[in-house]
């Protein structure tokens, strides 16, 4: 039975999608507390606001205000351990990055970039 150090090996680790493309970082870990049983990992979060919250609630509020410009539904993006396909230097999950919530900023910028600037192809 292998033990994983959540903070050392999971938190802030790069998350890749099923095509090995970068999806984001593990910005937060949520534990589920259970009566009479040890807590277990409920889900992992990939969301900028979650990361800033680790500095303080004030930063989270600013980040959220900013992120509202491009964030659609599905935030904060969460995945469970069942979706993890490979775990090592990076965490690979069975998700398509292009369709996952963390890419909202990417899509929003593509809209503004493609529309305005030539050569972006």
């Amino acid at each position, binding site marked *: 039975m292998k033990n994983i150090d959540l903070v050392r090996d999971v938190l802030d680790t790069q998350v890749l999608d099923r095509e090995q493309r970068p999806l984001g970082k593990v910005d937060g870990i949520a534990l589920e507390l259970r009566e009479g049983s040890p807590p277990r990992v409920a889900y992992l979060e990939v969301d900028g606001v979650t990361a800033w919250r680790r500095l303080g609630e004030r930063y989270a509020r600013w980040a959220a205000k900013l992120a509202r410009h491009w964030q659609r539904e599905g935030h904060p993006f969460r995945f469970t351990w069942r979706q993890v396909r490979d775990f090592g*230097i990076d965490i690979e999950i069975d998700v398509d990055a292009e369709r996952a919530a963390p890419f909202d900023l990417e899509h929003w*910028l593509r809209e503004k970039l493609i529309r305005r600037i030539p*050569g972006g192809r």
Partner: protein
Amino acid sequence: MKKILGIALGIVTSIGGFLDVGSIATSAQAGAAFGYSLLWAVLLGTICVIFLVEMSGRFSIVSGHTIVDAIRKRFGFAGFIVPFAASLLVNLLVLASELGGICVALQLLTGIRFQVWAIPVALAVWLLLWLGTFDVVEDGTALLGLVTLCFLVAVFTLGPEPRELAAGFVPRLPGEEHAHYLFLAVSIIGATIAPYLFLFYSSGAIEDKWDKSYITPNRYIATLGMSFGAIISMAVIVVAALALKPEGIRVEEYEQAALMLVPAFGRWGFYLFVASLAIACFGAALELSLASAYSVSQAFGWNWGEDLEPRSAARFSSAYTIFIALAALIVLSGLNPMKLTLFSMAITAVILPLTALPFLVLMNDARYMGEHVNSHFSNIVVLLIVLLAAILAVVAIPLEIIGSK
């Protein structure tokens, strides 16, 4: 055979990319004011940067991570955010200095004020990143950067006294102007050990997909590339010492530095200086913009890569776009480019520990490096030089500010 070509290209890239506005400005000032006596500062900085660059290559090869990615993972978001923000801010100031350098070169050539060039120059830098690939950017500017070898040629033409030259490698306080001497020493070290250099190198190793077979080539590229580059920096000091100091010309503005190649090359001297300044700064501006975009993308886990079309890496491309725009604004503001450059270099020296020390921790972490962790020797060398530079900077900067007011 391919490996040898690769090593050669890597070395050439490092030479062409070594000289930038920081090295030119600090070396020119140092040579004009203090002759050869600051050569030791370039040497010290170079030794440190060789170690750092080799480590950065080795780190990416062995761990498969880039440095920024790993620093966030190892120290956590909260632990890394302050050094990260500080290094981005300094990068911005240095980028503004590089863009300023190109604008000043154009001002020297045409007589048109440097601020006017800010936007066209920024646009040119941006366009090359927007449309180019990593190899084109790296190799193109590196090859062009070889024009800076003219400083080396000038040294041979002017023929310095070898024994006097050698004395410059021993640190010794001059008879007067101690504060300024110290400040220049610190700025030279900051210009030589630019953190963006080794962060960029680590991203480059990943972009070029270096595997374990590159561990030894990496050592050669780091050592030879940085050494040859340093020799050019030293050449600038020597040329300034021989061409400007005897005339009593101090380099307070770039206009005065532009004279330094005339004794060696006559009519060509002025144009070679302008070309060297413009090309060296252009290459550095490209690297710096990319390095900053790499940092931000790797910190937040975005997809990144110069080979990716902007549409496929919109956040990465937006990052360097915004960066270049902000730097252009700083140049537009009309801040004296020479002063901006010198202070950026000194500030770089101050925050050097913030970037280098976490990196050293990583280099000694077996979970990332396996059996390739640092030797005690490497650790000690980098630690000593980085801390020395920072302490000197903290002392020298206030003194310089007071002295010039």
